């Protein structure tokens, strides 16, 4: 089960997640009702991003449109729209956007504005001969703008972290709860060995999970691995070790399984999701949060995996990130051993 769940998750999220705004439902208030306005609407409807879901008859209905949360924008085409276009005069249209999710609202406004101005210029260009600079845009690494190349490394970082932290934390605390930890402690084993032997099985299990995630990403999600496999595994090895150490630390500070689980899940999940950079760009965060994001191991792992898998970069570009993770590993290991000894006395 521990094995199957992460795999299902990576697949599900790899296919489902994308921040693109496909099929956004829009409502239209067409006061012009001419061939031109119909053409514009047709063009919008054909676009992958938008679906015209409703025609409104009066501006009194505007408020009600947003109440169910289904439609995100109203396009208001005023009277005289076609007349202005045909005479090449100033024309305006109005967009009323549901602003609750500003990010979404900005994207919707931008795309709709682009479609509309495109429509307008095409109408004008037929009449005059103007000079144009055309952009020739190439999308590197991910030409179809899929969500997976961005989300799979992120989800991978998150799942590995939480699985490792939870598994080790719980397994050690369980020994405390049932009392078997006492037996281990009075045995002639060194504390370091107890820690290591607790972590090693989970290290192998995590590597197995990693392998299966990678195989599925390549075969089903069509994600490339451009870089060196060896480097990929070396980096993952370090990351998994950091996560296992985190789990050990949590187990040292907690007494019951419930505590350990609550801390691992409550304390790890949201911070990793939000601060590792795969959901929200770190450069947009307030400075204190940018600083905090540096102690999130997943941030560094995500950066490296993205580089190795999708860009195919080598060690010479990611060595700084790797060094940070190695540093975390060292610190956690020292702290874990120190704290573990204290319990002995």
């Amino acid at each position, binding site marked *: 089960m521990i094995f199957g*769940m992460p795999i299902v*998750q990576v697949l599900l999220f790899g296919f*489902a997640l*994308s*921040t*693109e*705004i*496909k099929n*956004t439902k829009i409502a239209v208030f067409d006061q012009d009702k001419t061939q031109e306005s119909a053409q514009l609407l047709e063009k919008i409807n054909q676009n992958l991003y938008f679906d015209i879901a409703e025609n409104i008859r009066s501006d009194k209905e505007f408020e009600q449109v947003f109440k*169910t949360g289904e439609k995100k924008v109203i396009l208001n085409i005023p009277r005289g729209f076609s007349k202005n276009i045909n005479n*090449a*005069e*100033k*024309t*305006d*249209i109005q*967009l*009323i956007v549901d*602003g*609750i999710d*500003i*990010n*979404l609202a900005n*994207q919707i*406004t*931008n*795309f709709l*504005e*682009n479609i509309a*101005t495109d429509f307008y*210029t095409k109408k004008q260009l037929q009449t005059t001969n*103007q*000079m144009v*600079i*055309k*952009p*020739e*845009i190439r*999308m590197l*690494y991910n*030409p179809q703008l899929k*969500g997976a190349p*961005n989300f799979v490394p992120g*989800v991978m970082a998150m799942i590995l972290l939480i699985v490792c932290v939870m598994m080790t934390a*719980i397994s050690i605390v369980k020994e405390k709860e049932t009392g078997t930890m006492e037996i281990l402690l009075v045995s002639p084993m060194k504390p370091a060995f107890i820690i290591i032997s607790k972590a090693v099985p989970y290290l192998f299990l995590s590597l197995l999970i990693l392998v299966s995630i990678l195989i599925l990403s390549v075969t089903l999600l069509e994600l490339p691995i451009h870089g060196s496999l060896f480097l990929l595994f070396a980096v993952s090895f370090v990351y998994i070790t950091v996560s296992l150490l985190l789990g050990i630390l949590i187990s040292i500070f907690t007494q*019951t399984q*419930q*505590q350990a*689980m*609550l801390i691992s899940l409550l304390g790890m*999940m*949201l911070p990793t*999701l*939000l601060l590792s950079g795969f*959901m929200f*760009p770190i450069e*947009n965060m*307030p400075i204190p*949060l940018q600083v905090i*994001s540096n102690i999130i191991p997943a941030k560094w792992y995500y950066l490296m995996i993205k580089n190795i898998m999708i860009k195919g970069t080598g060690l010479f570009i990611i060595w700084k990130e790797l060094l940070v993770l190695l540093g975390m590993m060292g610190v956690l290991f020292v702290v874990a051993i120190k704290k573990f000894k204290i319990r002995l006395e």
Partner: protein
Amino acid sequence: MFRQLSILIKKEFRQIFRNKSILAIIFVAPMMQLLILPLAANYEIKNINLAVVDQDHSTLSRDLINDITSSGYFRIYYYGASYDAAYETLEEEKSDLILQIPQNFEKNLVRENSQKISIAINAINGTKAGLSGTYLSAILKKFNQKINIQYHPQIAEKIKNSGLEVRSSLWFNQTYNYRLSLVPGILVFLITLVAGMLSALNIVAEKEIGTIEQINVSPIKKSNFILGKTIPFWILGNVVFTIGLLISRFIYGIEIHGNLLLLYFFVAIYLMVVLGYGLLISTFSETQQQAMFINFFFVMIFILMSGLFTPIESMPNWAQKITYFNPLRYMIEIVRLIILKDSKLTDLFPQISALIAMAVVFNSLAIWNYRKRG
């Protein structure tokens, strides 16, 4: 019957309050997260780092670059004549896109009336790439107009008098508050996490410690036992939600436009769903570890498929169907709609029916699956 129930509830509360550290985790951890994390979620695409390869070095190319940077979306990280050097900055994630202006750009534009510039965008983050391209195209369109006025004075007048203006207005959020969508979402997620986890672990813990045997041999009724397990967490969930609501009102300044009573009515039903879900897991698992993993599996799916971070409309069809079974999806919608848009019960009919259905199904399955002599 009620005496039995009230004794059971008292017992649960005693167990909860006895464990001070768990109590702290239940209340403090979610609140800390609600206080800190929404600040992180700014998806506005600005500060796009540009690597400019200018092989023309003309007034025109400099004008163009100037127009691009003064738009506010872009800033120049690299400027030079070498494509390879620019590409390296892209590879190191220092820059997000390369803009290449070819040799004799200005000369050829005047001669041929048309020129191409090439733009290469790092598209691993598809959204950011798409938006960068859109921004650049829009800037170029304006720039085209500008140079036409400059080079073709005969049609300048005509160009100036034409043009399409798209006036956009933002509703429900005049102050550009980035936290408006995220705070209610995270609040709902946190009560799901706390209530779901506590109830999922609860019966299992009694199984593991062995106290469930004692309850099984006592004359406590099955329904009373389940209710006694549910009601304390239901109350706790309400308390956590209330604290969160206060934080969102007084710290984030999110005003509650809708009816509070209606909001709590929905919270009450939603907590039934979550607790039913937790109980169901609890009855299926043998150890706390098992319960935890199953819970983690679903919680991840709940949050990432809820539409909080990525729009549901952009998922493939089969994935959208999965979200119909995601209670978090409905509840986030509901809380947003009531708080921010003053939606009424009649607007929320689909959501409420889905939640009630889930509450009934989860809870009856849990009761049915909990075998007293198990």
